[in-house]
């Protein structure tokens, strides 16, 4: 018996939840889960609320990875805080408090998080004391073309002694809008939670609906989803590798990576009619089929990549002035990455070997061959190399998918999903920045009763605050870009 099954056995299992178990547990088991999280025996996957209940998704393992959802009833809106025991839950509990008025008893930080309230309402940043310290407030409107957030730097000369981020500026009521939406509308909203991960979000949503319905998607649709997701990963990683180098004032990498990124987007447009492949993954399958011309465009893209990308890798590898900026900068400790369950390149560049495509393999990845690169150094340089290696893996995956594609259906008939009515589904999908969690309950009228998304950034943003400590202010853009966390995906 694992720790996780012990916990589940103390509660009442919810029969309509798929594909992983969910159990309604008492406060004792709930707090025990918090202690297991703190002891590193479980990893937090998410924590969210709804009227009267708090839910927590946890990962057991390491091998085989197990997933479960624990739910606790909130008498008078209160439940025992997990953040009190395990810091990664703090921001999630602050968010659930803002959105569902659930009071985590013992939560050490009770400031608002996603709902800021009136503009006149002050936000107390953590106190800082010391001689010669000064503060630099940055944002929410930034100097670059990026999303809004506020960063409060406390510095001693040029050295950052503390960074505190305040997020939530792009909070736009995603979960409130999802409640009551039909599948088609909810899929459109899911695809606009974080535009750069539109395929991953739409896929996570579709998977959760399909899990609730207990249906299997046609093989061709599954491969096409994989194709779209790997093209998305390719485009984003190319943009990030260029962007990180540009933030170290090495613009030639941005220019050349930007060209390749544009080629990927144009391939998307040629294949799927949209540069980001938005609204292409839908519950039950995909909305657009790949034509023979589309497949040829993807092959041409791979040929272009094979020709143009290796010289850029060599350029990064041999430019010592650039590596002088990236090596050793923005270090994330391995223990911290493990404690926070950091996914994506941030976690994997700090030794946390976790990739949903491999560890909780979902089709088509369960029958494709690829490796999950992991590095130990945990600095900006490691995060660059990790993306370079993942670009190579995505390139190989795309070639495999093209070989595997057979003619066939691309979508289930709409009425196939009607059996999801009154049931619950969950999914984890590997987006380019890490695992996206989707959880939903379908109401008796067939619309979404409650739907929650958790971006990988929730467990990466706090590590950025740790990574910048002791670095100079001028290296913040470099560190930030090497994380490339989502604001919109986090702010919901």
């Amino acid at each position, binding site marked *: 018996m694992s720790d996780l099954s012990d916990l589940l056995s103390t509660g009442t299992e919810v029969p309509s939840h798929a594909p992983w178990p969910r159990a309604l547990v008492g406060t004792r088991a709930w707090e025990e889960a918090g202690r297991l999280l703190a002891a590193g025996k479980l990893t937090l996957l998410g924590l969210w609320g709804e009227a009267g209940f708090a839910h927590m998704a946890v990962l057991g393992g390491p091998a085989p990875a197990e997933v479960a959802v624990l739910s606790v009833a909130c008498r008078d809106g209160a439940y025992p805080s997990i953040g009190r025991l395990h810091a990664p839950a703090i921001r999630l509990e602050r968010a659930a408090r803002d959105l569902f008025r659930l009071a985590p008893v013992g939560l050490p930080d009770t400031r608002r998080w996603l*709902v*800021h309230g009136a*503009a006149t309402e002050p936000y107390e940043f953590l106190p800082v004391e010391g001689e010669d310290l000064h503060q630099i407030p940055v944002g*929410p*409107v930034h*100097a*670059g*073309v*990026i*999303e*809004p957030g506020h960063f409060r730097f406390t510095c001693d000369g040029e050295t950052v002694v503390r960074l505190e981020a305040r997020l*939530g*500026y*792009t*909070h*736009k*009521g995603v979960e*409130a*809008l999802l409640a009551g939406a039909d599948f088609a*509308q909810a899929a*459109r*909203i899911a695809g*606009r*939670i*974080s*535009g*750069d991960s*539109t395929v991953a979000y739409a896929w996570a949503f579709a998977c959760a609906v399909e899990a609730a319905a207990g249906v299997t998607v046609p093989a061709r649709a599954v491969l096409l989803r994989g194709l779209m997701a790997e093209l998305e990963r390719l485009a984003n990683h190319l*943009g990030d590798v260029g962007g990180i180098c540009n933030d170290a004032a090495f613009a*030639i990498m941005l*220019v*050349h990576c*930007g*060209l390749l*990124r*544009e080629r990927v*987007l144009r391939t998307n447009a040629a294949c799927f009619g949209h*540069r*980001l492949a*938005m609204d292409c993954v839908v519950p039950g399958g995909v909305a657009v089929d790949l034509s023979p011309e589309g497949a040829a465009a993807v092959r041409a893209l791979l040929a272009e990549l094979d020709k143009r990308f290796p*010289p*850029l890798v060599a*350029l990064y590898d*041999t*430019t010592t002035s650039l590596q002088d900026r990236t090596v050793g900068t923005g270090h994330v400790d391995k223990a911290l990455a493990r404690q926070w369950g950091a996914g994506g390149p941030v976690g994997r560049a700090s030794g946390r070997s976790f990739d949903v495509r491999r560890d909780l393999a979902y089709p088509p990845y369960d029958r494709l061959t690829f490796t999950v690169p992991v590095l130990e150094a945990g600095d900006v340089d490691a995060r660059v190399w990790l993306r370079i290696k993942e670009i190579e893996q995505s390139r190989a995956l795309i070639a495999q998918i093209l070989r595997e594609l057979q003619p066939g259906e691309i979508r289930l008939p709409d009425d196939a999903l009607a059996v999801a009515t009154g049931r619950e589904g969950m999914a984890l999908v590997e987006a380019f920045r890490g695992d996206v969690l989707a959880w939903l309950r379908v109401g008796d009228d067939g619309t979404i009763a409650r739907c929650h998304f958790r971006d990988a950034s929730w467990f990466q943003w706090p590590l950025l605050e740790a990574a910048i400590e002791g670095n100079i202010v001028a290296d913040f853009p470099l560190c930030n870009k090497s994380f490339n966390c*989502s*604001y*919109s995906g986090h*702010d919901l």
Partner: protein
Amino acid sequence: MYRLLFETLLRGPVTEALPADPELAALGAQLDAAARRKLGRGLAIREVDTGSCNGCELEVNALGNSFYDLERFGLRFVASPRHADVLLVTGPVAKNMREALERTYRATPSPKWVVAAGDCAAGCGVYANSPACVGSVAAVVPVDIHIKGCPPTPVQLLQGLLALLTPPSREIAGQL
């Protein structure tokens, strides 16, 4: 690096030759003339994300890649609203961003224009009726032009910026 630079030199510019796309060519010429007449050699743009999903930011950033090369038209992004002629606003206006948008608008010296880029900025898109949003950009600051698209493509963005500079076309730019 020298090898890459040399090869790039031999390959020539990848910036798309304007005659290959008559629409973009005409656009570029008009924009160039209009921008010069009004603002000398440049139009400075400050981007403000008031709640976008970041899809619009991706395409706004793409304007800077070598295919579109925004700066050849005299358009450039600046780091501060105090240096800007144009606020390019994306996203529905989240309640949490309302004050930031108002303050950014006030910090931008006149004459100034506001471009609401993308379906969310123009009409809230899928975020219409959200309890966490104020509304579209026009609900908070005066908007000179809307650019449709979810997200607008780089060409649509260029078309919108041109329409801004060639009055009396203040209506909504059509889809390409």
